[in-house]
């Protein structure tokens, strides 16, 4: 019976490409919820803030738990505003990051090359509170990286990127963190300007959909020419929330609908841009769709 069942079940025709796509789409959906629906982690942090005296701030500010369009702009809620409690607050438990001045910062994917490490600038402050602590004071800053010292990233506002220096297993450990919350964007310029994407580029690489999750699979590509027009178009693009884009674009985790452009900038930091068929660009940890000029988009898409 065993062998008979095995033989028959193995006759099920498996659309392997689609199966893998669906699986990754499910993972991405869960990840996206972590990144954008801060209800997973915020429930705990907000409860913490409330417990230790941040309640007034929270009560004065209407909670905003989802990315929404408000007065024509796309609003990614402030960390402290988002007081949705999910009851499943451990879902984001593997995300390395910290809360600084009541905004969430998460570790970037960029390799920490020597170039990047030289960007470590002025010391800001020490963060020793962990997200598990409670106390008598308002905790604006709390980390899950262990005690860390925060530094500026030369060339960037501390409200955009930070270095955190701490220890892991007895060794010095550095994280480059990027802010994830508290944005109001109408155009691409509102978001990307602070990332200084307009600086010279050291090199480009691209990944297909199947490779997007592994930075080591990125292959060099020469797209200097289309990149400038593409970047201009990205800066001028319209920001949209997920519900405003076609379903095929919103559900973009498929081989034919996503390509990843990895841009290593002059300062050494590598950023990833997800190009979505239909003319959209998504920044990996921000669930906002930027609708780019179709001509510039097409030229870049076809160059990858």
């Amino acid at each position, binding site marked *: 019976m065993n062998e008979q069942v095995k033989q028959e079940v193995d006759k099920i025709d498996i659309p392997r490409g689609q*199966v893998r796509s669906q699986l990754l789409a499910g993972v991405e959906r869960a990840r996206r919820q972590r990144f954008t629906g801060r209800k997973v982690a915020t429930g705990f942090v907000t409860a913490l803030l409330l417990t230790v005296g941040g309640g007034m701030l929270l009560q004065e500010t209407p909670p905003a738990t989802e990315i929404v369009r408000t007065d024509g702009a796309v609003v990614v809620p402030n960390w402290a505003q988002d007081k949705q409690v999910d009851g499943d607050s*451990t879902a984001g438990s593997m995300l390395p990051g910290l809360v600084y001045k009541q905004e969430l910062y998460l570790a970037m994917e960029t390799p920490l090359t020597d170039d990047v490490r030289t960007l470590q600038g002025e010391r800001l402050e020490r963060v020793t509170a962990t997200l598990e602590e409670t106390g008598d004071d308002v905790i604006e800053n709390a980390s*899950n990286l262990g005690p860390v010292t925060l530094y500026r990233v030369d060339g960037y506002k501390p409200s955009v990127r930070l270095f955190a220096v701490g220890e892991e297993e007895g060794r010095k450990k550095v994280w480059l963190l990027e802010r994830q919350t508290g944005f109001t964007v109408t155009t691409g310029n509102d978001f990307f300007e602070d990332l200084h994407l307009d600086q010279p580029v050291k090199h480009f690489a691209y990944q297909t959909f199947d490779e997007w999750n592994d930075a080591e699979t990125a292959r060099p590509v020469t797209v200097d020419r289309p990149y400038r027009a593409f970047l201009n178009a990205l800066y001028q693009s319209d920001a949209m929330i997920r519900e405003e884009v076609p379903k095929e674009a919103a559900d973009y985790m498929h081989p034919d609908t996503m390509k990843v452009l990895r841009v290593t900038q002059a300062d050494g930091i590598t950023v990833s841009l997800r190009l979505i068929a239909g003319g959209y660009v998504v920044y990996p940890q921000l669930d906002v769709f930027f609708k780019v000029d179709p001509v510039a988009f097409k030229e870049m898409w076809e160059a990858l």
Partner: protein
Amino acid sequence: MIGRRNKRQPAFDDETFLMFLTRHDTYLYKMSYLYLKNDQDALENVQEVAYRAWKHRHTLLDATIAKTWLTRIAINCALDMLKKTKGIRVDYATVAKEIAEPVMFEERLVNDLYLQDLLEVLTVAERTIVFLRYYEDYTLQNVADLLQIPVSTVKSTLYRAIQKVQTRQTGGGAG
């Protein structure tokens, strides 16, 4: 870590967990297909399984039970989809009476077993138990533990499933 920390470490880090999921994607599809009987629903189920598994991966503390953990999620997702799309509810605990014939029925061979039998002749509950027992080689006790039903129910369900297939072969069944 953002959020409440677990007292115990999860079984896998994110990278390893993703590898674990991708290694089992065709398994998840097969399971999904056996429940849902069409490719589109099965694909959708795979996505939902991956979503729930990733979301709750921190609850997996023991790597040795990872596949069983994933199987349970896959079953739950498929049952939810059956309920949602077809209004079918499955209660394993009541699918079969106590087995009346305490023999080594599992030694039996059916002359011809076809995928179509599994899909059309057997109920969802029977398919599940047949799959776990004969495809995944779970012990009777493991099937019982996974589905949270008595071992006797597992046995009787398997017995009935085999009988159904045999009946189909002799022309007396639904097949």
